[in-house]
């Protein structure tokens, strides 16, 4: 599995907050996805109903997941495809390698896939002398830079066009060094030309799946560029790497989820390309892959079933939660230290990596609730993050200062008289200290707050004491 640095979230976040280029990139992207999503939702009166139905479809499927997986498997085989089961990321890597070796593959073209990131497929391919070519523009850019995606649908959202230009100049050394390459259209043209040749060179094409359909044994991918299509249509072998919770019962169920997916992700009514693949090419088909393999990955997901985190398996990976998250929008995706960033990552990563490894992440939330508001399948992300925090606390994994602080707070909270007395004194002291400026730039025990911003100074009395003395809003 991909190495995680989630334990270092605080340090990672501090480093990212100080990164001026990242600031510039995040500021530029801000609002694009959120505004478009709001418009798309408004343009579809049935949007809220479709969200409810999508949630119900996913819940129903997970409750009967063993049944639907077996049904799906049978249909894939009937249509001439192969199904492989992977319990762990290592199993998935071994299966991919075995398939690649069976056709003596020198290169694998890849459509965007977060599961591939989770299983560290590229690293494994390179170790075995097989070239992995990321074909999604964003993935291609970060592959050149040796980076990982910072967003599940916009992998290079943390980069500016200047950085992309720099990487293209450093890597495409066969091209004229004096060429003009400043603007996004010229950058895209260059990537298109270079990747074009690669499509015809690979023996294997790999994609993920947004959905697997039990009724037909089909896999469905959703893209805007068309790279996932060229990757699966031209090479001899198509491998689909998908996690087990991608299953839906029928094509009708798939249609419902597709209606909320693009709208929640980019705010498009429908992505440019929605592609359904069933088996290998048929007799008489002039193109398409000769072999079709599906790898069904568990990697910790069954362990979440039957627990308070089961609802997380509804996730359709649209990215709406991170687009709307004030924490993600400030620190970017890399601070989270593993494959899945933002609120969905803060819930999923401890599930897949363990709370001792990724228990920091659920603390990276202001609990503003925006993620839950926009989640197309209504995952109660703040509640699930709170559940992880409780587990972290119970397992004595939270730092000593936090435990002492929480212990003190809970003592006062259980003794209202003392609470009022203590907060009253605190307010008066802070009000006096901040009298001159109305704000405080350093407060004992509150460095976590005052390091990055001032604390507004209280005006002298607590809410409770003002209420008690009869003060009411005008």
């Amino acid at each position: 599995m991909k190495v995680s640095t989630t334990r270092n979230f605080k340090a990672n976040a501090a480093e990212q907050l100080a990164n001026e280029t990242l600031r510039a990139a995040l500021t530029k992207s801000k609002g694009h996805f959120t505004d478009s999503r709001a418009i798309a939702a408004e343009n579809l009166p049935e949007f809220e109903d479709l969200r409810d139905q999508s949630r119900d479809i996913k819940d129903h499927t997970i409750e009967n997941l063993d049944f639907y997986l077996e049904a799906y498997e049978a249909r894939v085989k009937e249509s001439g495809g192969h199904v492989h089961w992977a319990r762990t990321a290592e199993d998935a890597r071994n299966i991919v390698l075995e398939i690649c070796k069976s056709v003596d593959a020198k290169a694998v073209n890849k459509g965007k896939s977060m599961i591939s990131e989770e299983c560290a497929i590229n690293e494994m391919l390179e170790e075995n002398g097989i070239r992995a070519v990321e074909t999604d523009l964003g993935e291609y850019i970060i592959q050149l830079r040796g980076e990982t995606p910072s967003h599940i649908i916009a992998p290079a959202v943390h980069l500016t066009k200047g950085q992309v230009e720099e990487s293209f100049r450093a890597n495409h050394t066969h091209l004229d060094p004096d060429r003009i390459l400043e603007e996004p259209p010229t950058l895209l043209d260059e990537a298109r030309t270079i990747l074009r040749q690669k499509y015809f060179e690979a023996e294997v094409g790999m994609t993920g799946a947004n959905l697997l359909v039990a009724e037909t044994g089909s896999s469905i991918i959703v893209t805007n560029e068309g790279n996932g299509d060229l990757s699966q249509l031209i090479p001899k072998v198509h491998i689909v790497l998908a996690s087990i919770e991608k299953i839906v019962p029928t094509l009708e169920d798939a249609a419902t989820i597709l209606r909320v997916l693009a709208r929640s992700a980019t705010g498009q009514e429908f992505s440019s390309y929605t592609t359904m693949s069933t088996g290998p090419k048929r007799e008489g088909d002039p193109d398409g892959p000769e072999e079709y393999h599906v790898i069904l990955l568990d990697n910790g997901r069954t362990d979440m079933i039957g627990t308070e985190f089961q609802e997380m398996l509804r996730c359709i990976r649209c990215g709406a939660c991170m687009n709307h998250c004030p924490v993600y929008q400030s620190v970017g995706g890399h601070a989270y230290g593993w494959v899945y960033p933002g609120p969905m990552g803060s819930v999923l990563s401890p599930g897949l990596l363990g709370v001792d490894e990724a228990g920091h992440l659920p603390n990276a939330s202001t609990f503003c609730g925006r993620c839950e508001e926009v989640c197309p399948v209504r995952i109660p992300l703040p509640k699930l993050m709170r559940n992880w925090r409780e587990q972290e606390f119970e397992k004595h994994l939270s730092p000593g200062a936090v435990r002492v602080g929480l212990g003190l707070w809970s003592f006062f909270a259980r003794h209202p008289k003392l609470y009022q007395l203590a907060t009253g004194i605190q307010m008066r002291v802070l009000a006096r200290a901040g009298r001159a400026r109305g704000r405080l730039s350093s407060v004992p025990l509150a460095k976590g707050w005052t390091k990055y911003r001032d604390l507004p100074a209280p005006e002298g009395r607590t809410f409770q004491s003002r209420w008690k003395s009869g003060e009411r809003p005008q």
Partner: protein
Amino acid sequence: MSDNRETVLSSLRRALGRSGPVDDDTATKLRARMVGHARNTVPARTALDDAALVELFETMAKKVHATVAHVPNMSDVPGAVGDYLRGENLPSEIVMAPDVTLDAAPWEENALLEIRRGVPVESDQVSVTSAPAAVAETGTLAMFSGPSHPSTLNFIPETHVVVLPKGRVVKSYEDVWDAIRAQAADPESGRDGQLPRTVNFITGPSRSGDIEQTLLLGAHGPRRLHIVIVDGE
């Protein structure tokens, strides 16, 4: 890896609070749900008559940067394709699907077009295909792979021209599912009970927002998607 299969399935069942597969009653219900093809909510925006449906398709397709032209009959299609290519300053060599819908047009009368039928190669600039269906809801074309429609025609050339007889405009994706199921079941279709290997829903030309969220057309697939709607029978 067959032990992986057993391990995953049995741990799933344990997690779901069962010791084995679902009981017979449940299995019957689940199977019925899978073959029942019950529709969930389908947006009401497509509750329109045929003419308005074609209009909605056109409006939605243009919104996502497809271009649309109308011709009265199939016999006018080659002229319209030629006009479009000249107007956009594009080459007149085209690679065309070996498809009976397109056979109905008099291509030989348009001497300026140089036509090859079949699978595209890397250097092909323009493809022409028909679309077996189009979804009004989002301005989406539906393409089915098969001997008469290589899927790569939808992706390799920079310009994709699609001929769409107007009667093929349907309301929703669900209508397309019904169409592919009916085709699979029809002994005349040559599908032999199978779905097409690839079903492509295409909504506008290829695009990317991966560089600073700037919308750019023509990322890997076609830069231009031109739809010729045939209004007559």
